[in-house]
């Protein structure tokens, strides 16, 4: 290679050769120098410090520094959070600062079965804190702020019956009471004026959802939704409930956990399965089987569970059928019966309700309050509508309609709302037709209820 005319290049050759070598080393170094390795070394130090015997110390020292991941093929997830959060399953790390804290729900939701992101969201495949926690560009599912964590319980558990997620239950209650269903479908039932809410929690941040309740038009331009006035705790609860609507379904193993064996579930099952047809509580119900008021004092929980499993084996000669309850359902019913005395359960039993009461239920169920206000009192704005720019209240329908006319109006709806000022945009809210959605019997009850709204003592007639 020695040649005078090439000599001028030797310097270049050296420089470039060194640059390539240096860059390869730099690239390698940058790749090897990962955040999680530091966290693991710190953990090893801590374990060594806490070790009280030489074998324990050796064990701690020999812990390999490597990526840890939890494979969850059923949930279609891979979570690598335990690469840094190394003590989630170790109770002795309770109260430690993150990332070395013990997870308080580890016993009920072990990380090896559930992973982390199914509840906490975030980017499970990432291996550095910023990317894993997900508040980075181009990741749609950042970690839920901890105060909204109950939103995730709804993925597998029924919202209303989870004693560990009271705020979620409250959120669902606020949703039903505020009549949101009048305009929004959720789980297939509801109105069509606004969009269906089944996946709303997957697409928007908690802040967006909250702001949307307060001032819908600033967040969704052109929205017809009136601003909502909630007390702050209710606002947080309903925001959380909306967050829980992600449309994500969890498969078999996880949803079989849906039934938490709690008294609330038990009451619901009791009502659903029609136990009141044979047994009585607080004087209401059937007489074929014994009254259940004191069953908690007379029978042990184990007896009751066994009785649910196999009534004829436990009570020979009984006519109680075998219902095929799952273990958790049996436990839930048992819990309900055991606590009957303490809770003074008031049963709202369909057969025991009057038409007006049933109508009130229907009013609640179909979200009429969303437009017509709580208990028909009105107050919901409908800009530029001739009815004083409000959705009309229903207090006086008994005077303006016959029962048949009212039923007709409910079934057909009213799509044309007269505008106050033709130059302004037309009123955004209208009455949809409920034929096909509300059952015929329910409409009759609803009419009864609405007729009952007329304030007592008022002069009749216009």
């Amino acid at each position, binding site marked *: 290679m020695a040649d*005078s005319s090439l000599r001028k290049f030797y310097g270049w050759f*050296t420089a470039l*050769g060194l640059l390539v070598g240096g860059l*390869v080393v730099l690239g390698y170094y940058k790749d090897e120098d990962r955040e999680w390795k530091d966290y693991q070394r710190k953990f090893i130090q801590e374990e060594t410090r806490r070790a009280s015997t030489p074998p324990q110390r050796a064990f701690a020292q020999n812990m390999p520094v490597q990526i840890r991941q939890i*494979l969850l093929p059923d949930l279609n997830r891979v979570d*690598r959070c335990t690469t840094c959060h190394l003590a989630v399953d*170790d109770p002795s790390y309770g109260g430690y600062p993150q990332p070395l804290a013990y997870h308080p729900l580890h016993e009920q939701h072990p990380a090896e079965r559930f992973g982390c992101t199914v509840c906490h969201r975030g980017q499970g495949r990432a291996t550095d804190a910023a990317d894993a926690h997900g508040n980075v560009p181009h990741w749609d599912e950042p970690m839920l702020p901890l105060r909204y964590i109950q939103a995730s319980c709804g993925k597998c558990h029924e919202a209303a019956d989870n004693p560990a997620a009271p705020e979620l239950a409250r959120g669902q209650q606020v949703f039903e009471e505020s009549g949101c269903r009048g305009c929004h479908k959720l789980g297939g039932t509801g109105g069509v004026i606004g969009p269906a809410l089944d996946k709303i929690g997957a697409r928007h941040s908690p802040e967006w959802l909250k702001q949307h309740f307060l001032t819908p038009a600033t967040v969704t331009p052109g929205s017809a939704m009136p601003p909502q006035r909630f007390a702050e705790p209710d606002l947080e609860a309903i925001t959380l409930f909306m967050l829980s609507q992600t449309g994500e379904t969890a498969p078999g193993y996880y949803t079989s956990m849906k039934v938490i064996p709690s008294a609330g579930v038990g009451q619901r099952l009791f009502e659903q399965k029609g136990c009141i047809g044979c047994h009585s509580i607080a004087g209401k119900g059937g007489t074929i089987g014994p009254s259940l008021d004191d069953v908690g004092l007379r029978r042990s929980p184990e007896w009751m569970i066994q009785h649910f499993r196999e009534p004829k084996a436990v009570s020979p000669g009984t006519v109680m059928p075998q219902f095929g309850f799952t273990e958790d359902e049996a436990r839930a019913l048992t819990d309900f019966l055991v606590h009957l005395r303490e809770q003074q359960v008031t049963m709202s039993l369909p057969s025991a309700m009057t038409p007006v009461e049933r109508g009130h239920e229907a009013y609640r169920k179909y979200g009429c309050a969303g437009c017509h206000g709580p208990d028909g009192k009105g107050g919901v704005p409908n800009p530029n509508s001739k009815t004083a720019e409000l959705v009309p209240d229903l207090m006086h329908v008994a005077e303006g309609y016959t029962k048949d006319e009212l039923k007709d109006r409910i079934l057909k709806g009213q799509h044309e709302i007269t505008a106050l000022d033709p130059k302004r945009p037309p009123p955004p809210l209208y009455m949809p037709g409920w034929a096909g959605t509300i059952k015929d019997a329910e409409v009759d009850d609803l009419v009864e209820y609405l007729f009952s709204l007329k304030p007592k003592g008022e002069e009749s007639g216009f």
Partner: protein
Amino acid sequence: MEHSSASKDVSRRGFFQLTLGWLAAIFAVCASAVGAVRFLVPNVLFEPSLLFKMGKPEDYPDGSVTFLEEERVFLVRQGNTFRCLSAICTHLGCTVNRTGQGYNCPCHGSIFDDQGTVKSGPAPRSLEWFSVTLSKDRRLLVDKSQKVNADKYLVL
């Protein structure tokens, strides 16, 4: 044979430059080759883990031998000692069955005793025992990458 003359000699500076350049370039090539191989070595596996928890000690009655289908192991409890036996026949890898006195393989008739020692049949070796320890959250932790002797127990 023609030789170009004095220009063939490299100056001292040229010598160092060339040497250094070549060393750096060769180093870069070797480092890249090593890097490429390291790239191909997986850091995580997407197979079922060799390290897994098998539930609480209380879940296993005294004197029981519990077969875990997915993990292909038996968990043996005697008093308050726990051991974990591989259910994979050492002949050609079928899953063995538990019998009253030990284990036998349905594929080619190998018979193992209670300790996993091969008694008859084509199996060349005894069944393997895996390490069982207690995890921090009081679960039985089996490590199939750690083979132990038949006389190693977890004692609670």
